[in-house]
């Protein structure tokens, strides 16, 4: 097992193995990832999306790697900053549940795209 997917996206749960499925919110996924990073698990993909709109998503999938004996301070900084930013951005906004299925689809597509970038067959995860 090279990669682990931390996700709360039901679409990803259906299709992939090597899951750390979080029964909870986007923020809960971030917190789970933070805990794993503090245990020495490597952060492979960035915890945040690339636009404001994707912060409205109820779902998020983040790719993690191997567990090592040391904690990567850069990864700690990234996940901690991501949590601060996520909370800040959700202060005045709310999760867009109306389009939950569409967010699940896009999150799943972006995840597939990231695996393509990693040259890993998503179907074999």
């Amino acid at each position, binding site marked *: 097992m090279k990669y682990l997917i931390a996700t709360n996206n039901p679409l990803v749960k259906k299709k992939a193995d090597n899951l750390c499925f979080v029964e909870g919110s986007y923020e809960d996924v971030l917190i789970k990832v933070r805990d794993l990073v503090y245990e020495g698990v490597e952060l492979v993909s960035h915890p945040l999306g690339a*636009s404001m709109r994707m912060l409205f998503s109820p779902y998020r999938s983040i790719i993690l790697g191997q567990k090592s004996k040391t904690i990567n301070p850069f990864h700690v900084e990234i996940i901690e900053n991501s949590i601060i930013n996520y909370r800040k951005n959700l202060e005045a906004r709310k999760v867009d549940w109306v389009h939950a299925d569409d967010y699940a689809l896009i999150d799943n597509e972006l995840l597939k795209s990231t695996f393509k970038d990693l040259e890993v067959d998503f179907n074999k995860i």
Partner: protein
Amino acid sequence: MKLELRRIHIKDIQLGKETAVKDGVLIVNEEELVSKLKEDERIKDIKIDIARPGEKVRIIPVKDVIEPRVKIEGTGNGFPGVSSKIAQLGEGKVNVLYGAAVVTVGDIVGFQEGVIDMWGEGAKWTPFSKTYNLVVDITPVEGLDPHSHEATVRLAGLKAAEFIGEAGREVTPDEVLTYEIGSHVEETAKYPDLPKVLYVEMLISQGLLHDGYIYGVNSQKIIPTLLHPNEELDGAVISGNCVAACDKITTYQHQNNSVILDLYAQHGKTLNFMGVVLTPELTTLEGKFRTCDYTAKLCKMIGVDGVIISEEGYGNPDSDLLMICKRLENSGIKTVLITDECSGRDGMSQPLADTAKEAVAVVSGGNVSHVVTLPPADKVIGNDESIATLAGGWDGALLEDGTLMCELNAVIGSTSEIGYHYCTAKLY
């Protein structure tokens, strides 16, 4: 490379019998355009509409905006690698239907935003309220997968712009703008004392609805690459991103990239403009390191004194922006960043998702969280259900009379990170 952008000033768009420009009025044969676009079997229906500056019209959800043009001399009419055969761009003569724009509408997913108001308060925030817009609303056949759907809509817009652009082929332009920069050796010999400056343009490159294309190549697949600025002005860069309405760089904005035009204006006067580095914004951290290291290396290899970096999007791209900045500043290359801010309704929060002490010169394109109040439109082109999406971010945003309160985030091009927009700072 020498490129002439020959502007034909367009003062109105009308539908008519023949696609042509007459006395500054662009006439479009709707039937011909629709049948041209429907050559793509993936398209079920096309609706054409016109939105003029000042009309109480709202366009939503906008996918892309494209400037219609025709290349009358030199290779590469249309968008080589995408809508036409591959060809070298950047040289020759282009007739531009200046003041006209093709706006594509098509909701690929339900949460897409992207509003253009042609009048009132909304018009103040988007540059595309001032253009005469030919709106192409694209409905694909049923059962298309989302990737094909996105590609269909993207291609239809480019083809429409190419088709309409033909109308300008024989028209005498109202103004001719010439862009010419030679090789690094030539320009440095001409301006030995001027500081050498590169422009690093970042592109969201992360997958469905989050892509950019260079000569038709998905930028996700490239390592940072060097372009002559004329290539971008000539249509080498295409937008495939349609979730970050306020700071997405539309194809129109690539064709008229303000940073490139401003650097051109200073070339030979205060600086020596060495070209454009296109840098993908990837999702993996390894990918981010690769592209940021590579970008810094390109800048160092070319031996520049200064770099201007523009971002696209918000969130994980902030990391790339600052990683490139750190690398350049630490190599002694002066760096200016152009971004926008997500600093809360009151503008008091930290604006970016990341920070770095090296980022000492930062230009803001505006606060995406700024709230605007948009009165109801007489006519909505596109999908009026999307208006509820705009208001969906928080309670009480859609008032009973149809007035909409939304963040600038939802307005196309409102906080452009390449400066192609109206947000500005006033000194008191």
